[in-house]
C-alpha cells in the first residue's frame, strides 16, 4: 500500500480538486483507493456527495483504528472509498495531541489499511503543524500544487526549508503547477524559473479551467461531466505521472 498526500501550506491552490480527481483516476486504474478528507474546509467529501458522520469519535487511541474503519463510506465509483471530512480530522487531532511519539501515529494507523487498500490519498489541511508533520512521515510522496506566482514560489521555498530543517527527505516532495494560465506572462516566467531551479517539478500542468470550478455544481470528478475537456485530460495525465513515482 502507498500513501499519497496532497499538501500545500497555502489555501486555494486547487488541492481538493486534485485529491478528488486523482483518487478517481487511481480507482479507475484498478487500485483499491481510500481518500481521507483531513481538511475540514476542504470539500472532497462534498464532491462525492457524502455527508459527514454525525457521531463523535472516541478519544482513546487504541480505538482509533476501529473508529476510522467505521467512518469509511463507499463512493459511487468502483474501487474508491472515502473517509469524510471534519470528524476524521478532529479525531486525528485528538489522537496526535495527546500522545508521545505522536508524529508517527498517523503512519501506524494507516498501516492497518494495508489489507484493504492499494493506495491511501490524504487531502490535507493548508497549514504547518503536528498534523502536517505526521502527514510528512506517513506519506510515501507529497504531491504539492504550486500556482506559478511569486507568492506561491515563496511558500514552496518555505516548505523546502522546513523539510531541510527537520531532516525530512526532500525526495518525497513532488511539486506540480496548478491553476496555470499560460496567457499570463508571470505564470510563464515563474514556471520557467522554478523548473530550472527545481527539476523535480512534474511535467503535467493543470490548467485554470471553468470545468474544475464546475465540480461544485456537478458534485463529481471532472471526468463525469467534462470528459473531453483539457482539464480532465490533465488530471488523468497527472495520475499517470504520479503513479510512476509511487512504484
Amino acid at each position, binding site marked *: 500500500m502507498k500513501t499519497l498526500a496532497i499538501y500545500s501550506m497555502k489555501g486555494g491552490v486547487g488541492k481538493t480538486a486534485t485529491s478528488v480527481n486523482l483518487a478517481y483516476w487511481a480507482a479507475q486504474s*484498478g487500485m483499491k483507493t481510500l481518500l481521507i478528507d483531513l481538511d475540514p474546509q476542504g470539500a472532497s467529501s462534498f464532491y*462525492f*456527495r*457524502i*455527508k459527514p458522520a454525525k457521531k463523535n469519535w472516541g478519544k482513546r487511541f487504541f480505538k482509533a483504528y476501529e473508529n476510522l474503519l467505521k*467512518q*469509511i*463510506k*463507499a463512493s*459511487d465509483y468502483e474501487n474508491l*472509498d472515502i473517509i469524510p471530512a471534519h470528524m476524521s480530522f478532529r479525531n486525528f487531532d485528538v489522537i496526535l495531541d495527546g500522545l508521545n511519539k505522536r508524529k508517527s501515529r498517523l503512519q501506524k494507523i494507516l498501516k492497518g489499511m494495508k489489507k484493504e487498500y492499494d493506495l491511501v490519498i490524504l487531502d490535507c489541511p493548508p497549514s504547518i503543524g503536528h498534523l502536517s508533520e505526521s502527514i510528512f512521515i506517513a506519506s510515501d510522496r507529497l504531491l504539492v500544487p504550486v500556482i506559478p506566482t511569486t507568492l506561491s514560489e515563496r511558500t514552496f521555498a518555505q516548505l523546502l526549508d522546513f523539510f531541510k530543517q527537520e531532516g525530512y527527505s526532500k525526495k518525497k516532495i513532488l511539486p506540480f503547477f496548478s491553476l496555470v494560465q499560460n496567457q499570463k506572462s508571470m505564470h510563464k516566467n515563474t514556471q520557467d524559473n522554478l523548473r530550472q531551479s527545481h527539476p523535480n517539478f512534474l511535467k503535467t500542468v493543470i490548467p485554470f479551467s471553468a470545468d474544475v470550478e464546475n465540480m461544485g455544481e456537478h*458534485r463529481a470528478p471532472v471526468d463525469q461531466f467534462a470528459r473531453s475537456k483539457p482539464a480532465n485530460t490533465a488530471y488523468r495525465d497527472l495520475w499517470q505521472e504520479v503513479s510512476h513515482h509511487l512504484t
Partner: protein
Amino acid sequence: MNSMQERSWWLKNKPGFKKLEKLLSASFDGLTEESYWQTHKNLLDSFDWQLWQKDEALLFARETVQEEQTGYLQLLSLRGESLQVLEESQPNPPSFWWDLPDSELREYLHKRLDVCSLEAVISVEEERWLLACRDSEQKIRVRLEVVHREVFRLDAEETPRHHQTFITCKPLRGYEKSADQALACLHRLLGDPANPESPEYLLSLTGLQPEKALLPSPLPLHPNTPTETALREAADRLFAQARRYEAGLLFDVDTEFLHQYRVNLRRIRSIFSLLKAALPEDVWQELKPRLSELSKSTNTLRDLDVFLLERSEFLAMLPEAFRPGLEKLFHKVEEERRLAHQQLASQFLSADYEKNCQWLEAFFAEPPLLATPLAVMPVKKVAGQKIWKRYRKICKAGQKVTSKTPDDEIHQLRIQCKKLRYLLDFFASLYPPKQHKRHVKTLKRLQTILGNFNDYTVQQEFLLERLEKDTTSELDAALHGLITILYQQQLEERSKVMQALNDFSAQRVHADFKTSYKKQ
C-alpha cells in the same frame, strides 16, 4: 443477517418492478438506472470434474459495455463465494493452465489440473441493468442489479434453454442501514432470497450430475458377493469408464484421456489376472488376449506422450549449448506422435475395435459361471488371503536384495508391488478407509523409489534407441549427456531401494498387515 452481503431474489414478471419502486420510494429519494451491459459466461472444468471434486468451479466471463469487451476468470466455491479472480482480457476461455498469464490463479490451476484441459460445460448469456437508490444529495446508498439470462449446458447440441430473471441487492460500505431498508423491501415483495449465481445451482438447473459421470472411489463391494460376480461387476463399470475417454482421445483433447483410458483398462486386466482362478481356464484364455490387445495398441502413443511431457525437465538437465540438439529430437518425436495418434484413431474407428469392445461388454454383463472354487468364494475372504500372501511374497523377495542384485530382479519386485497395490485398491471398500490409506501410503513410499528407478531405466533405453536411429553430432552430444545424468540418477535411486524394502517389511508394518488381512 449480515447486511453487507449481496442477496438475490427471483423476479417472476416485469410489473413486479413498479411495486418494488413504490416500496423503495419510502426509504430513498430516487431510483436511477446506472448502466446496462451484456455478459457471456462459461462454467469451466476438466473432463473428470477436478475442480468440482474439490468443491470449486471456474467461471470465465466476457463483458460488453458500450461495445468494449473485457474478460475475467474467477474461481468460485460451488456455493458461489469468490475465491480468486484474474482480470484478463483474453477473448476466449483458457484450455490449459499454461494459457494464463503469470498469476496466483495460474499456479493454482497448475496444481489442480496439471496436464488436463478445461472445457466449457455451461453457457450463461446475461443482460444486466444496474440501478441505484439515491439519497437527498443524490448520493448512491445501495445498488440493485436486475439480471435477465439464458442458461444451457454445452455437452450436447440443442440442450434446453432456461430463461430467468433475478434481482440482486448490492450494499455499499458505510451505508448498512440503507442496505437493510432495501433488503426489507425485497423480502416483503419477493419472499425468500435465492442463490441463482452459484455454480451448484447452475449445475442442478441444467441437470449436470458430475457425481454420476465419475466412478465412486473405492468401488463398492459387498463382503459376501461371490468373487467372480464382484469381478464382472467391477469390470463392467471400469470398462464403461475407460470408454468414456474414447471421444477425447480421438479428438486429442489432452494427454490425460489416453492415460485414464489405459489406467481403467489396466485395472480390469490386473484384477482378472490376480484372481484368474475365478474363471475356468479356457474362459480366461479367451478374455486375456482381448484385454491386452486393447492396451497394446496404445503403448506407442503413451510412450511418446511421456517423453514429450518431460520436455522441460530434460532441457533443464542440459547446459544451454546442448539444448538445440535436443529440441530437434523433440520436434521429431512430436511428428512421430502425430502419426501414432492417427494410427490409433483409425484403429478406434475400425469395426474390429468396436466388435472387441462389444464382446467385452457382453462378457462383463453376463451372469457369472461360478464354476471354480475361487469364483464362489466370498470376496472379503479372498481379499484377506490375496493381500496377505502378496505382502509376504514382497517381504521375502525383498530380504534377498543386496547391492549386487541384478536390475532385473528389482524390476520384478516393482511389479509385485504394483500387484499388491491393485489388490489393496480393488478391495478397499471392504476395509476401514483409514487402514486402507495407511497401507497404501506405506506401499507408495516403496513404489515411488522403485518407480523412479524404473523410469530412469526406461528413459535411458528410449534415448539409447534414438542414439542408434537418428544421429547428428549435435544430438549425439545432447543424448550422451542426458543418458549419463539419467544413469547417475538411477544409481542414486538404486541406493535407496534396500532401505525402502527394509522399512516395508519392518516388524511394525508386518504386524499391521497381519492383523488386517491374515485369517483369524
